[in-house]
């Protein structure tokens, strides 16, 4: 009996697998987690609203604020479980073993004593703060000196609480072992993806065995990324995963038992469906119209111009390589490269080339750009917007912005976040263009039916997840949305899973390509020229637009930042 394409196509299986993971997230975070925490959040919010009438921040205000910070999806039982299972190797510098295992050590009695003393000090200061608050309240908060005295007492108490918390954190036994968690996590992923692999024509057990091999390589990639020096210079897991895979496949050869586990497209497409839930369209207004212009007007112009330059001037033979590098450079680096490459069905070597270029240039630009901005005395907001619109990876953008200052960090991070959201539209646009134009070799007008036939269906899952979670995020009350979408499903669940899937995909890609093919893609250095020319144009246009938007058209917004 012939099975429907709904059960035999990798694109649909990416949707089913990603959809299943997202549904679990909705049930555990938005239904169970929300129900258990919402009454406490509402109570804390009520306290915050009541206390906002007082001219200074009170003890009750700080306590309620801390409660709101802690009552998030990431702190529910499921959130903690996922964080534990999907944990990556911890930071290390000399001994890689400490990334996986540190034995629990007994706490020294001096530390226990210090914590107890700090706790007593907190209690004492709280009594003083409450006493002063009472006196200020007795004067109906009309006496400035009483208000000031109360405010100082509350801050002294709050400072002591922060110190007490830090001390307590340092004094708690730090031991951990990631080995059992990693094993369970690997088996869960292998079991889940094994179902899809089975319907895609692979033997279940053979896939599971091969998958475990790929998983080990993924763990090694994360381990190399977590080495402190490598992390600081921006050497991310994507590059390590590809490199490790390439080294194995080009030296001893990919072992035959691993080969059934190499399904990079399946991992990438599922990762993209998950990533869709992070594309919350409501975020694009975070910085107002200047942000939209810098991130959503400049980026498509640069993308299309670079693609045109690659086709007409450089005459790059592969359109998919051209568009993957153009998107990677103009949008947000590796994530954009993954989405675009999947949408236009680019070769694995082409994606590898784009990822490599992005990571190398990010490592250079994240240091060179803030240095240049400082040297010419550019204002922080303009510098931040420029960095946010041009440096590829978000982590590098935030760190580069931080070198300039807090304002630059906030603007750079927000611009990059808005640009991140754009990748859903870029992937959709590229998929439609490819289906209608590029794959239309007869150059005749094609109907909707034909476009649909060629259209990569996983993009529907990607866009669908984005729309669903945007709707949920907008419909839910602001605090609930922040606690259970932003701090729950997005940063406490999907983020970890999409990173793992992309890492496994890159390891699989490395294991299935060879250096010779990669050298062929680089022939004549055209990809490098394309990246450099496109980035030069991107730098100029982003700077011009950021200046116009933040200093000429909307100076009021700039003043408030």
């Amino acid at each position: 009996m012939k099975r429907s394409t709904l059960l035999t196509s990798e694109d649909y299986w990416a949707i089913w697998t990603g959809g299943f993971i997202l549904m679990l997230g909705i049930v555990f975070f938005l239904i169970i987690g929300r129900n258990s925490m919402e009454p406490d959040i509402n109570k804390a919010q009520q306290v915050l609203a009541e206390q906002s009438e007082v001219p200074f921040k009170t003890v009750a205000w700080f306590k309620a604020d801390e409660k709101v910070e802690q009552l998030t999806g990431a702190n529910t039982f499921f959130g903690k479980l996922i964080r534990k299972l999907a944990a990556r190797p911890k930071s290390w510098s000399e001994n890689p073993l400490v990334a996986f295992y540190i034995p629990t050590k007994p706490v020294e009695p001096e530390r226990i004593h210090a914590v107890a003393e700090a706790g007593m000090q907190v209690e004492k200061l709280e009594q003083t703060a409450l006493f002063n608050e009472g006196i200020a309240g007795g004067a109906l908060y009309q006496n400035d000196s009483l208000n000031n005295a109360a405010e100082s007492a509350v801050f002294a108490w709050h400072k002591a609480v922060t110190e007490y918390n830090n001390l307590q954190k340092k004094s708690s036994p730090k031991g951990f072992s990631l080995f059992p968690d990693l094993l369970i996590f690997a088996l869960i992923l292998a079991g889940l993806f094994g179902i899809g692999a089975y319907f895609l024509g692979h033997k279940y057990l053979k896939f599971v065995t091969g998958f475990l091999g790929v998983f080990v390589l993924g763990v090694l990639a994360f381990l190399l990324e977590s080495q402190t020096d490598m992390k600081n210079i921006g050497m991310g897991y994507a590059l390590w995963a590809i490199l490790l895979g390439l080294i194995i496949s080009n030296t001893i050869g990919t072992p035959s038992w691993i080969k059934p586990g190499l399904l990079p497209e399946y991992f990438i497409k599922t990762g993209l469906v998950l990533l869709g839930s992070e594309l919350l369209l409501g975020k694009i207004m975070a910085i107002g119209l200047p942000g939209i212009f810098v991130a959503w007007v400049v980026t498509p112009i640069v993308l299309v111009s670079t693609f045109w330059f690659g086709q007409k001037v450089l005459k790059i033979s592969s359109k998919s390589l051209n568009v993957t590098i153009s998107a990677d450079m103009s949008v947000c680096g590796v994530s954009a490269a993954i989405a675009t490459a999947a949408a236009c069905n680019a070769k694995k070597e082409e994606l590898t080339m784009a990822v490599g270029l992005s990571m190398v240039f990010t490592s250079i630009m994240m240091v060179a750009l803030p240095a240049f901005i400082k040297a010419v005395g550019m204002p922080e907001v303009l510098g931040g917007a420029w960095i946010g619109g041009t440096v590829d990876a978000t982590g590098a953008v935030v760190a580069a912005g931080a070198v300039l200052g807090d304002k630059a960090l906030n603007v750079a991070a927000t611009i990059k976040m808005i640009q991140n959201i754009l990748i859903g539209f870029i992937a959709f646009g590229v998929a439609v263009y490819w289906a209608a134009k590029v794959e239309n070799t007869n150059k005749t007008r094609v109907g909707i039916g034909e476009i649909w036939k060629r259209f990569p269906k996983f993009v529907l899952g990607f866009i669908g997840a984005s729309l669903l979670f945007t709707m949920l995020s907008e419909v839910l009350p602001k605090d609930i949305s922040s606690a259970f979408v932003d701090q729950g499903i997005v940063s406490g669940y999907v983020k970890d899973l999409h990173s793992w899937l992309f890492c496994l995909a890159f390891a699989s890609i490395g294991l299935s390509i060879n250096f010779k093919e990669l050298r062929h893609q680089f022939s004549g250095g055209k990809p490098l020229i394309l990246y450099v020319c496109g980035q030069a144009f991107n730098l100029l246009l982003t700077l011009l637009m950021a200046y116009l938007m933040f200093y000429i058209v909307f100076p009021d917004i700039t003043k408030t930042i």
Partner: protein
Amino acid sequence: MKNWLKLIIWIAGIWLFIKTAPVLVSMNGEYSRFIETAEKRGLNVTGLFYSEVPETFKAEKMLKKSRVELKED
């Protein structure tokens, strides 16, 4: 045998890179400043997407707040 030797050479190359890259980088003042800032603030420099970098959520909150204040004024 030759292939295993190649693998060992690659592993040695990675080890050498991990050992020498920080030394080379520390010779550049700008790199040192960048690393110092990232370490001091505990930033995840290798985060690819906004959700992997917690500072983006804080920045978004901060800027939204300043926009609300601008509207209120």
